[in-house]
């Protein structure tokens, strides 16, 4: 029993280099900075919505009326600045939780107008988890001039938890299809009819629809295969927690799945498609290390001392 508990403990909190958790912070933070920057016009577009359309969800469900426009803009500005601090690891004990809270409020606001988009759930949950961990013990402004700490389980459990969060989003989507879609979902007809109806809805709403879907709608066998593959990817998500190689296969399958969704339904899920959502599964420090080495080489080439060297 003791051995089993120790094994579970090792699995939940494996000894991990601080650089790995820090690299995930940098990747998720950088993505959040760019994404929030691009989404600010969209989020701010709700300021012109009539108050009657406000249907708050989550954290904002306590509100009866939409918050004042100035407050929304202030939260967006603070969210971006705090996310910058989060990414750079500057005063992380404050900037981390502040970034998580402000991103949560910003995206909850954008989902509080009668339509929940599901594109930002994993991103917000990832930032929330990272914000309460020691993700700035390395590769951060806070850690400048300090020796990198040795590998430790305290850098392992947050990554494991992030993997569980990402896996859960897909697993729950698979469960929902079985619960509410039933066996019809496996037959492919539900998927084909859903895509057909979605394409027509986009036409009726004066928007772009997928020409690929239009061409493929007649191929019933293909939707049967796609439906089965979708459920395999979603319900098989927990397998990605078993081993890094299994995770690599699963992540490739998920990215292919999202590319399929983009091609057939013109719905973009930027966080998983960027690959950043899956960074906790891998040795993310290699990516940031590679980027840092490139930046150093670039600086060395540009510096006068570098160019004067024989």
């Amino acid at each position: 029993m003791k051995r089993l508990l120790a094994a579970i403990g090792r699995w939940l909190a494996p000894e991990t280099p601080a650089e790995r958790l820090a690299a995930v912070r940098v990747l998720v933070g950088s993505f959040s900075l760019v994404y929030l920057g691009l989404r600010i016009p969209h989020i701010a577009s709700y300021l012109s919505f009539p108050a009657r359309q406000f249907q708050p969800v989550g954290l904002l469900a306590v509100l009866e009326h939409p918050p004042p426009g100035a407050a929304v803009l202030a939260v967006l500005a603070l969210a971006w600045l705090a996310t910058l601090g989060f990414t750079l690891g500057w005063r992380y004990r404050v900037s981390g939780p502040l970034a998580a809270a402000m991103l949560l409020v910003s995206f909850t606001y954008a989902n509080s107008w009668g339509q929940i988009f599901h594109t930002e759930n994993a991103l917000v949950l990832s930032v929330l988890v990272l914000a309460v961990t020691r993700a700035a013990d390395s590769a951060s402004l806070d850690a400048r001039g300090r020796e990198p700490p040795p590998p430790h389980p305290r850098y392992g459990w947050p990554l494991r938890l992030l993997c569980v969060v990402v896996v859960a989003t897909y697993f729950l989507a698979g469960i929902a299809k079985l619960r509410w879609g039933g066996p019809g979902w496996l037959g492919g007809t539900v998927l084909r009819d859903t895509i057909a109806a979605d394409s027509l809805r986009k036409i009726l709403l004066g928007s772009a629809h997928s020409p690929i879907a239009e061409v493929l709608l007649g191929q019933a066998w293909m939707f049967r295969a796609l439906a089965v593959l979708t459920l395999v990817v979603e319900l098989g998500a927990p397998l990605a927690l078993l081993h890094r190689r299994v995770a690599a296969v699963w992540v490739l399958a998920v990215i292919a799945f999202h590319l399929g969704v983009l091609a057939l339904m013109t719905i973009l899920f930027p966080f998983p498609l960027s690959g950043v959502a899956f960074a906790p599964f891998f040795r993310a420090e290699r990516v940031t290390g590679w980027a840092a080495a490139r930046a150093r080489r670039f600086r060395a080439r540009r510096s006068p001392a570098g160019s004067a060297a024989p």
Partner: protein
Amino acid sequence: MQAVNRGRDHCYNRAVPLAERVRALAVSALVMAAVLWPLTWHADRDSFPLSSYPMFAHNRRSAVLTAVYAVARDARGERRYVPPEVIANREVLQARAVLDRAARGGKKGVAILCGEVAARIAAGQGGAPLSSAVEVQILRGRHDAGRYFDTGELGEEKVLGRCPVTR
């Protein structure tokens, strides 16, 4: 010796102060419980950032689509679908939510939205394609998507409300 130490360090229970262990356990338990909580929700419940991800999960029995949408007609009676940014913002699903909500509000709800859309078109939103529009109609249509993509034919439409575009 190194292997022994490694084994000890590996064990979170021995290597970390109690307060940090409790924090790690509490955060992990809370987050796992939170993300799995939507499994207990009903099909029509959703939230953010926690969700049961019900999109596209429902058992659609056919490709028949019932949808509320807006069209702009010009003086010759030709119609164009009003794009999402004129109804709500650039998100198609947001425009759908706004139209559905207006339809649920009955004649009054439709009239308010119709007036707003017509005012935006009059102000130049929607650009050249809608510049000659003289009337906005909010419609509820019931269409077979499979048939539409085979033949280009739409099904039945009902006008829920109409209003002039006054420039």
